[in-house]
């Protein structure tokens, strides 16, 4: 599937004004994304900043290639306590045009670690297997075999075997495995494979087009603004979805330039490496041999040792750190070969755009562990090379021109080399926009969609949550395939669900949320035939859910026969009109709302107040019979004393911005009731827990498990809590009991619990369910810490800023308790789950759904 320069790519002046999908970058992530989506029939525009060079005809390690194919001519510096040279491609095909074409599958330990640390969902060896297989097939991944090993690899292998270390032959993306590393067209790069595949499926490729920024508005990507490298003309391409696939450096730089900054560019991981030349007695002919074959796995994942590409120029560069001493060695270039020792970097770097330029500032501070690992790695490499018969080893370390013995090498492992003396480089960068559901670290969800956006995706090495310890091309491609297919599935599903039934009987806003998902699940479940749900006669009814464009309805998707989606936003009257279409006489559960905004408190006003107003207006216009609106305890603030409880007659005393927004929401609901055009019931649940809980609630379990959950004061302050099924019962009863119209109800578990009882209950459940015994000593802090957090929270919110941790900590020394007496008396509400039963069910749900406690 070779493609010449003439065959692929379109002139930049033909840039279209719109496309269904824009893919930025044509490397391992971008080309794979474009090929997958174009293959599914999408109209794809693929833009690449670099030139469209027929790499099949040039030596990718030549000076000519360095000028034409490498970003910054191969001079991308990573700054920090020691500068590191980062090398990446900038051409059609990206870094796959200049790398060694090695192929690794993701090491098994990464799956578990990423699921645990980053709450990465839908990700496991079985899930990824087909994608790795597909990549291996398409890129002709194969082994060279010992019978064809080049001399430099042969001596390397003999050295490893002499020492008894573990090693592997690394497969390569190469059609003719015996061909030279520099043979025209042998390496199966993206320009040879997935780029032509994308074009054959109808994708349009534009090279020499630099993307200035992603255009977006209110969580929706609108397209990209580009400039053509030839004439600098600005141009806008509108798109239904944008995939940013510029690699681990350029992707976060572009997103940050575009104002998308949350967890973007803060978590850069690299594999720093140090090289060395070795002099042997026999002729190595390294310049004419294929790429090195073997990697030492004995010290993996901390240290990797292998062979490196050889040219006389590269040899001179390695020797250049001690050039005066070593220049004479160039005479013996044909008896020399190059090797490296690399490490899985322990630090985390950052990427920042430079104002007024498309420039990027990359920072990465080497840790002491990195210094130690590289020193030990170099020592082991030297040991290996001497075992292989090397006469001398020349490390790229200033002040250490040559090593003559194993003992000298071992000394490096004992007395670590200062990193300032090492000449370091890296070709592996990733993790700058990690994917997963952990809100503290992740820039995108588990499928690459940027958090807070409905149609902006990242799909390249940036997503890899942390260092895999191997060349990331295979992992990048497999993830890109999975995410692209997930996009296709979701888009098609959403499109299919837009076809609404003429007469829905139940409408739910905020359905993909925690409470809404559980409500849908209960209404659709077998349980519907009995108990309170059976008596309500709501089970099995036709349900229509309003799904926010950024939400993933995967959990309610399994109830496909009875549930339909309508993509929209409570703040968007147009989508609400569609949502309420044909719903006259139906019941509405209004659960859409924001509890913890990402940053700005104004979001609370937009969704909780404006959204509710629009929902009520649209519901009344559509002739909805009754709306059950979900409020909160926050409009009532805190109890004055630990033994006091709120009743439905308690006065409003809103707590912070959220409380004010919910009080305003209740006021709007009461106005609607007073208008006589609709029946309303307000439900006030306190802190709730249970199936479909978000990661922040699982974090609560984890903190208790690790003894880190802070108990402020004596822990006697009480909290009403509500298992999610108990709330659903309250909502269903509120919707069906005729006398409830115009009333408000507290819905919670049977009684409030002191904080220390909540913690103790969770500790016991964790031990019973998971066999985990939390530390005996709990984290107790003075009650004043809560008061201080409340003060800080107040100041921040006064400035319009919301910080979830500060806010929650501020509530921890307060009593927030309510009485459910009225709900029991008027609705017949009987909470089915106690705290212990509820927590047990919640823990089980977490375990079954991959939320690591």
């Amino acid at each position, binding site marked *: 599937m070779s493609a010449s320069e003439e065959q692929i790519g379109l002139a930049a002046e033909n840039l279209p004004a719109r496309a269904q999908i824009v893919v930025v970058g044509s490397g391992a992530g971008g080309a794979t994304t474009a090929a997958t989506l174009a293959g599914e029939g999408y109209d794809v525009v693929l833009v690449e900043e670099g030139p469209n060079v027929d790499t099949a005809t040039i030596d990718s390690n*030549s*000076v000519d290639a*360095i*000028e034409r194919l490498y970003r*910054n*001519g*191969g*001079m*991308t*510096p990573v700054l920090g306590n020691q*500068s590191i040279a980062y090398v990446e491609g900038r051409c059609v095909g990206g870094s796959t045009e200049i790398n060694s074409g090695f192929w690794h599958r993701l090491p098994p330990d990464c799956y578990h670690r990423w699921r645990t640390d980053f709450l990465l969902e839908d990700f496991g060896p079985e899930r990824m297997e087909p994608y790795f297989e597909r990549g291996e097939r398409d890129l002709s991944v194969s082994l060279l075999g010992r019978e064809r090993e080049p001399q430099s690899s042969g001596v390397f292998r003999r050295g490893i075997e002499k020492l008894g270390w573990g090693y592997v032959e690394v497969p390569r993306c190469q059609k003719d495995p015996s061909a030279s590393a520099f043979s025209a067209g042998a390496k199966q790069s993206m320009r040879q494979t997935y780029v032509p595949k994308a074009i054959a499926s109808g994708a349009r490729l534009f090279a020499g087009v630099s993307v200035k920024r992603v255009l977006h508005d209110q969580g929706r990507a609108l397209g990209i603004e580009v400039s053509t490298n030839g004439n600098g003309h600005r141009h806008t391409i509108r798109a239904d979805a944008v995939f940013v696939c510029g690699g681990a450096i350029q992707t976060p730089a572009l997103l940050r330039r575009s104002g998308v900054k949350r967890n973007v560019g803060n978590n850069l991981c690299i594999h720093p490496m140090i090289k060395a030349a070795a002099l042997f007695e026999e*002729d190595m*002919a390294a310049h*004419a041999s294929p790429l090195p074959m073997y990697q030492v796995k004995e010290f993996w994942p901390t240290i990797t040792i292998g062979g490196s590409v050889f*040219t*006389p*120029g*590269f*040899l*001179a*560069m390695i*020797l*250049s*750190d001690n*050039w005066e001493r070593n*220049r*004479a060695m*160039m*005479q*013996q*270039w*044909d008896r020399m070969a190059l090797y490296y020792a690399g490490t899985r970097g322990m630090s985390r770097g950052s990427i920042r755009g*430079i104002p007024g*330029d498309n*420039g*990027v*500032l990359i920072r990465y501070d080497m840790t002491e562990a990195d210094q130690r690992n590289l020193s030990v790695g170099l020592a082991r490499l030297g040991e290996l090379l001497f075992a292989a018969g090397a006469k001398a080893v020349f490390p790229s370390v*200033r002040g250490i021109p040559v090593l003559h013995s194993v003992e000298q090498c071992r000394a490096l492992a004992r007395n670590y080399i200062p990193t*300032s003396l090492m*000449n370091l480089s890296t070709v592996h960068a990733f993790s700058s926009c990690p994917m997963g559901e952990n809100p503290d670290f992740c820039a995108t969800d588990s499928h690459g969609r940027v958090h807070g956006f409905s149609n902006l995706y990242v799909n390249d090495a940036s997503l890899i949550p942390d260092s895999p310890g191997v060349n990331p091309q295979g992992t990048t491609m497999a993830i890109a395939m999975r995410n692209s297919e997930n996009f296709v599935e979701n888009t098609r599903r959403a499109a299919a669900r837009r076809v609404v039934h003429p007469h829905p009987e139940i409408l739910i806003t905020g359905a993909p949320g925690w409470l809404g998902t559980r409500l849908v699940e209960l209404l659709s479940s077998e349980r519907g035939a009995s108990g309170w749900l059976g008596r309500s006669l709501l089970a099995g009814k036709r349900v229509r859910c309003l799904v926010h464009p950024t939400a993933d309805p995967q959990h309610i998707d399994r109830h496909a026969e009875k549930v339909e989606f309508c993509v929209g936003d409570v703040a968007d009257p147009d989508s609400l009109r569609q949502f309420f279409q044909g719903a006259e006489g139906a019941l509405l559960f209004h659960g859409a709302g924001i509890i913890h905004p990402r940053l700005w408190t104004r979001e609370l006003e937009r969704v909780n107040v404006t959204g509710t107003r629009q929902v009520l207006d649209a519901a009344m216009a559509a002739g909805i019979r009754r709306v059950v609106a979900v409020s909160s305890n926050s409009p009532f603030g805190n109890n004055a004393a630990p033994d006091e409880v709120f009743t439905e007659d308690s006065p409003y005393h809103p707590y912070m911005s959220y409380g004010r927004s919910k009080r305003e929401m209740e006021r709007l609901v009461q106005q609607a009731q007073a208008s006589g055009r609709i029946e309303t019931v307000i439900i006030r649940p306190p802190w709730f827990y249970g199936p479909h809980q978000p990661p922040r609630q699982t974090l609560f379990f984890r903190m208790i498990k690790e003894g880190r959950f802070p108990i402020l004061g004596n822990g006697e302050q009480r909290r009403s809590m509500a298992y999610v099924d108990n709330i659903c019962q309250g909502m269903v009863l509120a919707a069906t009991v005729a006398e409830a119209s115009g009333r408000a109800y507290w819905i919670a578990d049977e009684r409030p619990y002191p904080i220390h009882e909540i913690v103790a209950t969770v500790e016991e459940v964790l031990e019973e369910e998971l066999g985990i015994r939390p530390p005996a000593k709990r984290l107790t802090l003075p009650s004043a810490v809560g008061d201080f957090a409340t003060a800080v929270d107040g100041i921040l919110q006064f400035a319009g800023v919301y910080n979830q941790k500060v806010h929650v900590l501020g509530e921890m020394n307060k009593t927030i308790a309510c009485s459910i007496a009225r709900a029991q008396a008027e609705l017949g509400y009987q909470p089915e789950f106690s705290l212990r039963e509820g927590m047990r069910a919640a823990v089980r749900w977490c375990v079954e759904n991959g939320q690591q406690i």
Partner: protein
Amino acid sequence: MKLGHLSEAQEVVLSKIAALVIDGSSTAGMDDAVQRYVTRFVALQVENIPAYLRLPYLLAITGFQWLPLLRWGRPFTHLPEKAQRDYLKLWSDGPVGVTRDFVRLIRGCALLAYFDHPQTRLALEPGRGVEDAGRDLPRVAVR
């Protein structure tokens, strides 16, 4: 001169440094075509440095050229060859990391371009003895 691009004078400085690094001499030795190729490559690499580092780097080239005025009363390019070598050594092996990095970049690029130049590669081909190669690489390979 365009901002961020090398002036002719700066290219001359780079050329002299490259020749000194490769050849040990700034006045004799290398084939003109090879020297032009090496200089062009080094200059391109310097111009390819990200802008926020390029401007300081260009200033450093100018500083490198004119600082010898303080000691020798002449700029670097007009110094005798031995003084040029000593001065370059002061920058490349001195105690200041920034000056070492300054030379390191030029040295690395110059060596890469030189040893991967087709003419040099040809001279290095197997089958040609070191002595043969030495005739083509008189001041590098057989010093």
